[in-house]
């Protein structure tokens, strides 16, 4: 059963700018892969709890003590653009 995908919407959600040719090509590939992956739907799983994690653990606490942090300058050195000790990005809101 082929899986229908609105690939342009998925690419927008994933924040990846693809042109029309790329969208078409990835759309076909995803449809093929999902057709295989959809085999999981053939297995009856009523009443089966999902496993999100292999270890049965909750709330990994540690003592609330102040420790050192990464060097501010060393961290900012790797940023594409900074200003006054902050990361700088283009405008976030549209003019309209």
């Amino acid at each position, binding site marked *: 059963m082929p899986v229908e*995908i609105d*690939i342009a919407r*998925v*690419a*927008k*959600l*994933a*924040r*990846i*700018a*693809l042109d029309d040719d790329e969208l078409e090509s*990835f759309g076909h*590939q*995803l449809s*093929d*892969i*999902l057709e*295989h*992956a*959809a*085999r*999981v*739907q*053939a*297995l009856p*799983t009523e009443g*089966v*709890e*999902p*496993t*999100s*994690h*292999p*270890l049965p*653990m909750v709330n*990994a606490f*540690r003592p609330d003590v102040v420790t050192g942090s*990464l*060097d501010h300058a*060393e*961290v900012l*050195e*790797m*940023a*594409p*653009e900074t200003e006054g000790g902050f*990361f700088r*990005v*283009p*405008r*976030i*809101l*549209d003019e309209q």
Partner: protein
Amino acid sequence: MSSLADLDIAEAAAGLRRGDHAAVDLLEAVLRRATITEAHLHAYLTIDHDGARAAAEQADRDLASGVDKGPLHGIPLALKDNMCTRGIETTAASQILAGYRPPYDGTAVARLRVAGATLVGKTNLDEFAMGSSTENSAYGPTRNPWNTDTVPGGSSGGSSAAVAVGSAYGGFGSDTGGSIRQPASLTGIVGVKPTYGLVSRYGLIAFASSLDQIGPLARTVGDAAVLLEAVAGWDPLDATSYRGDVPAITGGLDAGVEGVRVGVVTELMGEGIDEEVRAATRAMIDRLADAGAIVTEASLPATEYALSAYYLIAPAECSANLARFDGVRYGLRIEGDTTEEMMARSRAAGFGPEVIRRVLLGTYALSAGYYDAFYGQAQRVRTLVRRDFAAAYDNVDVLVSPTSPTTAFPLGERTDDPIAMYYADVCTIPSNLSGDPAISLPTGLDSAGLPIGFQVMAPALGEETMFRVAAEVERLAGFAARPFLATDEVISA
């Protein structure tokens, strides 16, 4: 012709203490080896000549003044380039991280420094560890040292190739669906995926957080055990790291398999597994039985769906993890009028096709309306896989299977067929879904002269039994072949 680079870790370490050689000699031996092999293999992305030299000299000074940091003191090791190393370029083989120098060491890396190891450099991988052939690297593929027309497996193909030829004594990789064991199998060495949580993931560039696990690659089972011991144990910086005592790892290596219950996984010995691989696996199982193991068949019916579940769970988690590569704090930025446009352009330019494919797949599988049919269902299948393993371990101590359905395949053969590529991990993925440990080690060569790997799986924290059985398999196999590129002689192209 043999060189210092051909010693295993145990021999190199013993020689250091006898005064046969110094740590700088060991480093020079692997660097000399690399000058020959790298032109053919491309196992390394970065060799840290200065840092490695300084570490080796320090190791020699320490030993001279009576400071012995243990079995890895002065031993040159290779690290997969998705492990953060302070000040040393760490790219995960992606354009989006070209030039990135982490401001910190990951926990495993820090522990190796404390153990006195010499960190030679950073090795190639499939971009963000997504792949089974090391062909998806933005910096070009790594080749298999047994036959350079074939792939070394992946995604830890760089570490694996380096260890196989001796441009490192041992190495580390990460295993999300088989990325340590499958390349170990294809290059004729030992590779271990430890129990989930046994090794801290802090400073490992995340692919799929509930599956990723750092583990060792080595030329002997004993070396792999020593490497794992150096990095295992609780780390407050990784909330998923295991808080209990580290299981005994090296304790049972000489204990043999008398009375050990070995289950042969029926579903991983049938169709889809190459005839020669199956025959070699079966032959080793017979020898284990001769050596005193109690061999039975074990069925894991849900593993038939494991591959499908994995290719929903791993992309879903990767789509979330890779959201951090957005051109803001580090990595590539392509300018745009708005922040959103800048991010979308940066990601399109910085990610390779397989990474884009998986991020899109994961985004789709998590999006409203599809979540339960795909991701939710995959997680329930994961529960069934875990139940199958638990039921099998009621009756056996370890499970065995081939590591890879085939030996090394030709470069380029599967690059246009993602589904054929994904099938390379069919035997390894179940252990990632269950979180249990597994090891691959070589048992022989096929008719083309390529290594065949054998997988031993154990229940969570069952490393001691797993290593015990693996050590017996190693003795029974007596595998001593080395790739033709394990040489210091110049090879004409």
